């Protein structure tokens, strides 16, 4: 695949690198790279991949741009709020580099479409914010023999690893499963805006290396980064003989989103209360002398900053151990900041035999928006 005079000028600094050179740049042009999630990780990764001359760049995201995305999702401008992310991203990336092809996939990846989407690409970058998607994408990459560069972030910390088919551990080797509610989402826990910039750029760097054939990929090594202390650590990861998808007795034959539920993904039904609905129930409970059992599952420092009157604090991470503090027929209502952790708490309580647990949909943010505008959480 030849390069035009303009392309040679555009990529001159990269062509000057002996590790890339003309043949490497031609390989980049021929490469098809898929970025899953146009979020904090996907945005910087896609910018660098487009700039580097990856010939075909796919983006998967079903979501629309929100104002709260803009502190880290650097593909988008204020005027893009409300637009489909993949559409706004395509425009921005083509403005940066009109010589490449951008494919926008405005959809949710699932077991029904993941093979078809990933099958059309050579390299996959996972920047999704759902654990179920991480397992699904991993399985698809293992089964289809596609390299996968995965990264994840939380508050000030990030981690990244590259999977190469047949050569190293996959994501299920790294973390065989993740219990529901064990890991907080960025929406609940917060994230430093520049953090995914570091990790997303690392993912792009890995993809450029894989596509061009330069250097040594991050295979069998987990890279962790702590922005607060500027600490990188590189830790070895081995293939697991008992891995369900790449192990010796693998039993996963088709991509699965099994084995997890993140804090924001309640997998079991729960009573969902709106903020105004909860207000009515609280008043009724107070009037008839049977106050509601309100359990605030945020961390203790969040609870200390502000909480609803009468609420008790059992952080989600302690709930399993302290579930005996609740009677089976308490019908507790779980509360958190935005409704993710409380939904996970419902599922956990139900498994522990608590009858009819409920949660405040939208969390205390919804309470502040719809019931009590003076209820400031104090850390936003």
């Amino acid at each position, binding site marked *: 695949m030849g390069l035009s005079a303009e392309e040679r000028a555009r990529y001159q600094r990269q062509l000057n690198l002996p590790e890339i050179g003309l043949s490497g740049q031609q390989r980049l042009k021929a490469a098809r790279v898929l970025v899953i999630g146009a979020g904090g990780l996907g945005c910087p990764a896609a910018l660098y991949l487009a700039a580097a001359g990856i010939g075909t760049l796919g983006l998967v995201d079903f979501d629309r741009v929100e104002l709260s995305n803009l502190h880290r999702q650097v593909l988008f401008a204020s005027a893009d709020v409300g637009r489909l992310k993949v559409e706004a991203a395509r425009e921005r990336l083509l403005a940066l580099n009109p010589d490449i092809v951008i494919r926008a996939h405005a959809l949710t990846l699932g077991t029904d479409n993941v093979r078809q989407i990933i099958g059309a690409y050579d390299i996959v970058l996972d920047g999704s914010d*759902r654990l179920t998607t991480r397992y699904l994408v991993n399985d698809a990459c293992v089964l289809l023999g596609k390299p996968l560069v995965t990264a994840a972030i*939380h508050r000030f*910390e990030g981690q990244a690893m590259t999977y190469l088919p047949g050569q190293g551990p996959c994501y299920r080797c790294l973390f*065989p*499963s993740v219990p529901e509610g*064990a890991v907080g989402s960025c929406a609940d826990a917060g*994230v430093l805006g520049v953090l995914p910039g570091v990790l997303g750029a690392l993912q792009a760097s890995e993809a450029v290396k894989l596509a061009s054939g330069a250097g040594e990929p991050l295979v069998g090594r987990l890279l962790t980064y702590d922005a607060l202390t500027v*600490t990188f650590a590189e*830790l070895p990861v081995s293939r697991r003989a008992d891995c369900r998808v790449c192990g010796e007795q693998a039993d996963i034959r088709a991509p699965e989103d099994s084995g997890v539920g*993140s804090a924001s993904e309640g997998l079991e039904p729960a009573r969902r209360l709106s903020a105004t609905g909860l207000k009515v129930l609280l008043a009724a409970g107070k009037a008839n002398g049977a106050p509601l059992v309100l359990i605030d599952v945020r961390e203790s420092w969040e609870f200390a900053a502000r909480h609803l009157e009468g609420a008790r604090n059992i952080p989600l991470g302690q709930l399993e151990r302290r579930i005996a503090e609740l009677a089976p027929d308490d019908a507790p209502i779980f509360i958190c900041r935005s409704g993710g952790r409380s939904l996970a708490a419902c599922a956990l309580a139900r498994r522990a035999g608590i009858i009819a647990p409920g949660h405040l949909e939208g969390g205390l943010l919804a309470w502040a928006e719809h019931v009590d505008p003076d209820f400031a959480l104090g850390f936003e």
Partner: protein
Amino acid sequence: MSCTVRIPSPLRSYTRGAQRVEAEGTTLAQVLASLEARFAGIRFRVVDEQERIRPHIRLYVNTREAGALAAPVAAGDTVHVICALSGG
């Protein structure tokens, strides 16, 4: 004997935000017990009721992965507690 334990972001609410803490012990089990004594509840986030390291947690002594709580820890070692992250 004292070692340094690096705490992953999702567990820092137990250590009042500290990213690195000191702990005592000559095995991982003792180090985790030492942590628990100071930061109640943290051990259960790392080890389950059957004393197994949880599947979304990995423990390293320096850069050596520890598959069991009996793994030795020497003075001056760094124990890395790695936790799966989900944010993107």
